[in-house]
């Protein structure tokens, strides 16, 4: 699969990005000179306390909102609007309830524009089944979202994210509402498909330290009001191995507790 199609190289770069929101008492600085980059093909996670602006970062990379100062670059080009080169997975599955799973997954290709290549209906059906297969939903193609569990809805949303073959995947706490077991299997699934479906750059938002360490190559820890990057962790286990090999390592536990302690100090008691 040629995941790296529309935008050439899909590096994400934030160059001293600040964002302030208008409030009644004037402006509130939400993000203060945030700079980092995610290389093409890497998975980076931003963690931080509620209100630190991590979702704002994701929204700016997606093009849903613009920085007040500074620049967001994807593939070397400044982000000015949303686009199919940056797929977005929402906090909730956000499947369209009037459509079957098959039609939900086909949605970006059937009605979208600028996806890089046109598919015939037969090719589209084949692609939908391929991605439904890769998330384990082959038999659920004709179900409606309300007929599925939360975990299945998440899988369907992941299949819809993957089918557009966007070089950049932006994920806003997509597994936060799932139970622990389902969340773990979704993390494994994400790691697996990102690795097997070609070069994808992933920017992931979570407040779950373990999730961040399990899926990413890089973790950025943020502080709140104003949001700043406090720490950059290069995850030594690469986020590429079976989670059982990772979670049993002493250095995993050590790093996890170190980050949790650091996060706890950031949250006013």
């Amino acid at each position: 699969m040629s995941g790296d199609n529309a935008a050439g190289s899909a590096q994400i770069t934030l160059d001293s990005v600040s964002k302030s929101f208008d409030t009644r008492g004037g402006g509130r600085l939400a993000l203060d000179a945030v700079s980092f980059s995610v290389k093409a093909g890497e998975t980076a996670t931003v963690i931080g306390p509620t209100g630190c602006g991590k979702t704002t970062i994701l929204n700016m990379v997606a093009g849903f909102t613009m920085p007040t100062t500074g620049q967001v670059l994807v593939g070397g080009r400044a982000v000015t609007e949303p686009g199919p080169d940056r797929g977005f997975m929402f906090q909730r599955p956000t499947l369209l309830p009037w459509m079957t799973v098959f039609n939900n997954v086909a949605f970006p290709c059937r009605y979208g524009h600028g996806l890089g290549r046109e598919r015939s209906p037969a090719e589209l059906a084949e692609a939908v089944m391929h991605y439904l297969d890769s998330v384990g939903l082959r038999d659920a193609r004709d179900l409606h979202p309300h007929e599925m569990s939360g975990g299945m809805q998440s899988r369907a949303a992941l299949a819809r994210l993957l089918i557009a073959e966007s070089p950049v995947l932006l994920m806003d706490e997509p597994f936060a509402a799932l139970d622990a077991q389902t969340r773990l299997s979704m993390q494994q699934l994400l790691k697996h498909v990102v690795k097997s479906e070609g070069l994808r750059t992933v920017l992931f938002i979570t407040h779950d330290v373990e999730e961040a360490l399990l899926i990413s190559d890089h973790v950025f820890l943020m502080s709140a009001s104003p949001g700043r990057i406090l720490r950059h962790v290069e995850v030594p286990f690469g986020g590429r191995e079976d989670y059982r090999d990772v979670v049993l390592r002493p250095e995993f536990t050590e790093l996890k507790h170190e980050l949790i302690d650091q996060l706890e100090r950031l949250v006013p008691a």
Partner: protein
Amino acid sequence: MSASAAAWPGTARRFAWQALPPLSVVALALLVWEYLIPLGIVPGVRAEFLGTPSGIAAAAIELGQKGYGGHGLFDHVRASLFRTATGFAIAACIGVPLGIVLGYNKRAGAFLLPIFGFLRPIPALAFIPIVVIWFGIGEFAKVFVIFMTAFLYVLLGSVSGVRSVPNDYFRLGRTYHLSTFSTLFRIVLPSALPEIFVSLRTAMALSWAVVVASELIAAQVGLGYLIQSASQVYAINKVYVGVALIGLVGVSIDIVFLMIERRMLHWVGR
């Protein structure tokens, strides 16, 4: 007795036991109405103005056979239904698309919605004298009053339906560069449809109420005319039949709407 009761299917027996007590209350009430009320036991109302069950049955048969005021009973129902359906259909055809546009395009909405929002709480009955001055008492005036009633309801219901489309649906559309057409027909309309449908049902019920009211004022045919005209000659049993018919048609319309709704909006409430 007990042997035949045991032979009944369980559900039928349960139904009989559930239906028996309320039915006996109804039967008792009918007996009191038929035999005691004509003796003048209700203070303040002349006994013959209260009618009797047997009188109502006779009136129903007479209305069914001879009609009323030179029109068959079915002609009265049809006249009222036709006025309602015409006014309602025009209102829906204009109100739903306009509501979607005004809900979707905030700038256009800002121009018009405050005006419609001001007009909507005015009871449609208050418009009737104005409409009579404008258009007289013909068919057009009645259809127009129904149009006014249904239009404002359907329009504002559609606006509210569009405004309650989750923001993430729009973000999904923007991410994949959906055309305005696709956004409207693949996201906005289906998402707003449940609320639009509720407003259509409410508008239909209101229209049915308003058609009767407008026929009370001036009409030669229609269920409103029937009860108004019959009441002027104190034919109370015919009035009862007319009122019951109005209720029956109203309930039937609502059931039809519910059936369409369940079919079209299979995902709602699950």
